[in-house]
């Protein structure tokens, strides 16, 4: 399938609702995207567009918010970051390699038989990965356990759980939301990657989530809506819990496939296998123009 054919099946923006008018991507955001594309092309497969919507969220977390020691990934005093939407792992692996949790050359082995980097992140295999995810709806419960552990152990660690918007169709997320609020876990922040597309199509068609802000608020969270590609806004909203005594939910409004114009909003790029040479060339060309 050529890039032109792929884009013919894109979902019109009018169909998925308003998307953020973000500032232009800076050099770091573009460079991180190129690392994702390199890994995708070396494997010939991956959830590229699900990763690209996450780049700024993860970049801000790892550059500006999280406390961690790349050479001591299990340092007890660290903040925890769980990528509950495990299929976005190309972005997480890119940031972890960028921060020195493991060698960047590992990314070239993505999805190969002996690689530590598979199509979903695994704790214990990949330094810096806090939880094995991929089956959706698991990260919040684990994050709640970690947030409670920090409270009992009197650590000031923060716990971040990044979900997809399709992912929060899962009932387990809402069980977790009630639990986090009951325990007043203000050391816990849920970030919803609100790219408005899931595998089959627009979330509004598959399982409408709106009014999403009201839902999280009704479940007892302090909620902020933010442009998920605006680095400055993300820095500001993630710097500290929003309200003492409440868990935080940040709804990061994003674009699936952000930064590569012809795959943005295209559900065919949710998961891609057999990426051809032409498609790879088109990805790189689009990044040049981003």
């Amino acid at each position, binding site marked *: 399938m050529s890039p032109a054919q792929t884009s013919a099946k894109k979902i019109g923006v009018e169909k998925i609702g308003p998307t953020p008018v973000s500032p232009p991507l800076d050099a770091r955001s573009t460079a991180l995207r190129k690392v994702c594309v390199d890994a995708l092309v070396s494997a010939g497969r991956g959830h590229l567009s699900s990763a690209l919507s996450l780049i700024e969220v993860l970049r801000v977390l790892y550059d500006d918010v999280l406390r961690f020691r790349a050479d001591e990934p299990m340092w007890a005093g660290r903040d925890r970051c769980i990528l509950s939407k495990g299929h976005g792992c190309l972005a997480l692996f890119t940031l972890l390699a960028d921060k020195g949790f493991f060698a960047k050359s590992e990314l070239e082995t993505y999805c190969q038989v002996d690689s530590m980097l598979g199509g979903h992140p695994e704790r214990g295999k990949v330094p810096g990965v806090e939880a*094995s995810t991929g089956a959706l709806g*698991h990260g*919040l419960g684990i994050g709640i356990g970690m947030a409670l552990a920090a409270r009992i152990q009197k650590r000031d660690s923060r716990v971040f759980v990044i979900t997809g918007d399709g992912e929060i169709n899962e009932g*387990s997320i809402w069980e*977790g939301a009630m*639990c986090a609020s009951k325990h007043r876990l203000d050391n816990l922040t849920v970030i919803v990657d609100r790219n408005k597309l899931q595998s089959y199509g627009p979330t509004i068609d598959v399982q409408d989530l709106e009014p999403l802000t009201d839902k999280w608020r009704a479940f007892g969270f302090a909620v902020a809506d933010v442009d998920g590609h605006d680095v400055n806004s993300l820095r500001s909203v993630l710097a500290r819990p929003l309200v003492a005594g409440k868990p935080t939910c940040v709804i990061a409004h994003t674009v699936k496939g952000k930064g590569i114009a012809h795959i943005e909003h295209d559900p065919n790029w949710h998961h891609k296998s057999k990426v051809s040479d032409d498609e790879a060339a088109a990805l790189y060309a689009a990044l040049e123009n981003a």
Partner: protein
Amino acid sequence: MRKAATDAIYELAKTDPRIVFIGSDLGAGTMDKFRREMPERFFMEGVSEQNIIGMAAGLAMDGFIPYVNTIATFLTRRCYEQVAVDLCLHNLPVRLIATGGGVVYAPLGPTHLAIEDLAIMRALPNMTVTAPTDAPEARRLVMSTVDLPGPLYVRIAKGGDPVVSRDEDGFQVGKAILLRQPKDVLFVGIGVTVNRCLAAADQLAAQGIGAGVLNMHTLKPLDEAGLLAAAKGVRAIVTVEEHTLMGGLGSAVGDVLLRRLGRAAPDLITLGIPDVFPEKYGSQDALMKHFGLQPTQIAEAAVRVLSAPVGAAA
């Protein structure tokens, strides 16, 4: 039996700050002493088994040893993926204390029966699967679990079950206990079927048939050496389980006999629940009788296999 188990958890928690207790929506007053004395390590989280397992996983990742208690069927079927991924894939020391395994909740119908819990837990890598036979054994089991690596499933019976375990036999996860030496036939039981096996053996003794009883309290890892040693020289083995015949004790024992002894294996009869959702109510005893799992029926099965031509057991 549940009280023996939860009392043991309380005792462990008093001296080990890593131990936390998580319940779903248990009976009023359950574990009140724990809640009063160690409130920061006591959690009652409502009817939300998926979240409870995830939460237990997160606590275990940061150094705690969670003991999770709710009704067996809801702790296995409802949150199976959380048990598989959050607990087993991460290989975390979370202990699932499953109340009312088997047909304990007979009058409440098939939604409340856990008749495939052992099989589906056994199928998960890293999971240890146990079913103590009586309250003292449940206590011995729990007291031995603190530093057991990986996740553990403990099927808890109704309570007030006949006490047939003995202090002097001790307890070790993965090590079967030979309660009675066999001669002609060996009964292998798990959970409360062990006391039915002993009663069946008494009946057979009166008929001059030497029946042994092996308490296979740990289904996984199965004590193959203990099984083969106990089976030596017997003509037949009868497994007895309050559980579906698909994937439980009978299946596990059959696998070992076939793999280790081949054609030299003694005849094997597996008693348990066929591939059905039980349609009857009544009591645990009534349902066990319905499925042929009471002492006289167990003894009759042994007589049948012993009187058939060698190799004719079905």
